[in-house]
C-alpha cells in the first residue's frame, strides 16, 4: 500500500517521492543546496563542459529515484558523490566505447610535448587533460580537488565521506600514476626526431 501512496503522491503533486516520516530532504532542497557541488564534482571526474548539463541531469534523476532509500544519518554530499561517480563512470565508459575522446588529444607525443617551457598554454591544458583521463573518475576527482582546486585533505575527506587515510591513499596512487604518465610522455617525445 505504501508503494501506491507513494505513486499517487508522485502523480498528484508532480514531486519526487518522499518519506516524510524519515525526514529525508526533497529533491528540490537537495538541488538548492548541492547543485554546485554536483556540477563541480562531475568536472573533477572528467565530464567535459559540453556534457555537464546532461550528466548532471542524469545524476539528479538517480537522486530522485533513490531518495526513498537515502539514510539521513549519512552525509548527503558523500551520498551524492557516490551517485555522481557511478553516473560519470558510466558516461566515460560509453564515451570510450564510441571511440569518443573525452578531450581533444594531440596527434603525437612530439607535437604535444616539447622540452621548451614556452609552449602554448592551450597545449599544456590539453596535455594535462589527456593525463588526467588516464585516471578513473574517483582518483581523478580526488587529485583535482587537491592539486587544482586546492582543497585540504580534511575537506576532501569530509565532502566525499571517507576517512582521511583513504584520501591520502587515493591521492598518492593518483599522483604516482599522473607523474608516471607524464614522464612516459616526455620520454617518448625526447626520443622522437624533431620535426
Amino acid at each position: 500500500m505504501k508503494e501506491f501512496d507513494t505513486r499517487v503522491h508522485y502523480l498528484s503533486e508532480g514531486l519526487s517521492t518522499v518519506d516524510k516520516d524519515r525526514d529525508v530532504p526533497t529533491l528540490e532542497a537537495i538541488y538548492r543546496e548541492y547543485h554546485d557541488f554536483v556540477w563541480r564534482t562531475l568536472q573533477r571526474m572528467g565530464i567535459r563542459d559540453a556534457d555537464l548539463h546532461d550528466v548532471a541531469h542524469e545524476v539528479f534523476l538517480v537522486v530522485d529515484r533513490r531518495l526513498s532509500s537515502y539514510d539521513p544519518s549519512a552525509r548527503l554530499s558523500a551520498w551524492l558523490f557516490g551517485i555522481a561517480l557511478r553516473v560519470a563512470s558510466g558516461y566515460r565508459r560509453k564515451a570510450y566505447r564510441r571511440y569518443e575522446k573525452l578531450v581533444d588529444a594531440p596527434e603525437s607525443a612530439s607535437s604535444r610535448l616539447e622540452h621548451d617551457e614556452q609552449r602554448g598554454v592551450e597545449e599544456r591544458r590539453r596535455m594535462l587533460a589527456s593525463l588526467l583521463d588516464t585516471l578513473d573518475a574517483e582518483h581523478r576527482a580526488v587529485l583535482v580537488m587537491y592539486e587544482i582546486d586546492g582543497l585540504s585533505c580534511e575537506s576532501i575527506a569530509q565532502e566525499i565521506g571517507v576517512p582521511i587515510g583513504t584520501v591520502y591513499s587515493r591521492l598518492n596512487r593518483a599522483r604516482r600514476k599522473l607523474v608516471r604518465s607524464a614522464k612516459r610522455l616526455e620520454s617518448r617525445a625526447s626520443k622522437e626526431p624533431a620535426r
Partner: protein
Amino acid sequence: MSRPPLRLRDPGSEASPLLRACLTEAAPSRSMTPDEVVRLQAALPSGGTLARSTFPARRGWTFAAALALVFAGTTFAYEWFEREPSPAEDTAKEISIPVVETALPAEEPRGASAPSTRVDRPETPAADDIPSRASTTRSSPRRPDALRVPAEAPEDDPLTREIAILRRAQASMASSPSDALRLVQRHGREFPSGQLIVERELLAIEALVRSNRLAAARARAARFEAEPGREAYAPRLRSILEGAVEVPVSAP
C-alpha cells in the same frame, strides 16, 4: 602517507617542470552560471518533466481512483496470466482499442549516424502491428536491453506499467534521447488512452529537442498546447523549447 603531500605544482615535488607548469596553469573546477542553474532545475522531475497528470489534485479522489485502477488491473492481469490465449485471440482483443496517438511529424534530414525512426500515423493499426503479450517478441524488432521494460508481474497494474515505461524514457533522456523517444512511442502504442498522456508528450518533445529535431519538437509542442486544458504546462514547455538552442551536440 600520514600527512598531506607537497602539491605537485610546488617546487620540490616529484612532478617534472612541464607537469608543474600544466598544474599551475590549470583552471579550477567552475561553478554553475545562473543560467545553468535555472536550466538544470527546470529539467528536474519536480520541475515538471513527469509533470502533473490529468488526475485532479485532490488526494482523496486520486487515491481512490488509483485503488480502483489497481483492483481492475490486478483482476485483468490475473485473468490474463491464468489462461494462455492464442496469438489470434490476443490480436482480436487488442484491435478493439482505438488508436489516438498523434502522428509524429516527418523526420528532418539528419546525418548518417542518427538512427532512423518510423512515423506513426493515427489509424487503426494492422493486426500484426499491435503489440500483444503473446506477440511482442514475434512482431516487434529485437530491442536493445535499455528499451526493454521488465515483464509485467501479475500484481502490476497498467498505471504502474505506464510509469515504468516513462521513467525509463526519462532516465534515457540524457544519454540517449533516441532511446527515450522510442520508449515514448512504445508508451503511445501500448497506452493510447493511458493516464500519463501529458507526461508522454512532454517527454517526446524533450527527446526531440535533445535529438536536435527542433522543427519536429516545435510542431509537437504546438499540437500539445492546442489541446484544451494544457495552459498550465506552458511554462514547462517553454523551458524545454528554450533549451533547444543550447543542446550540445557531442563531437564525433
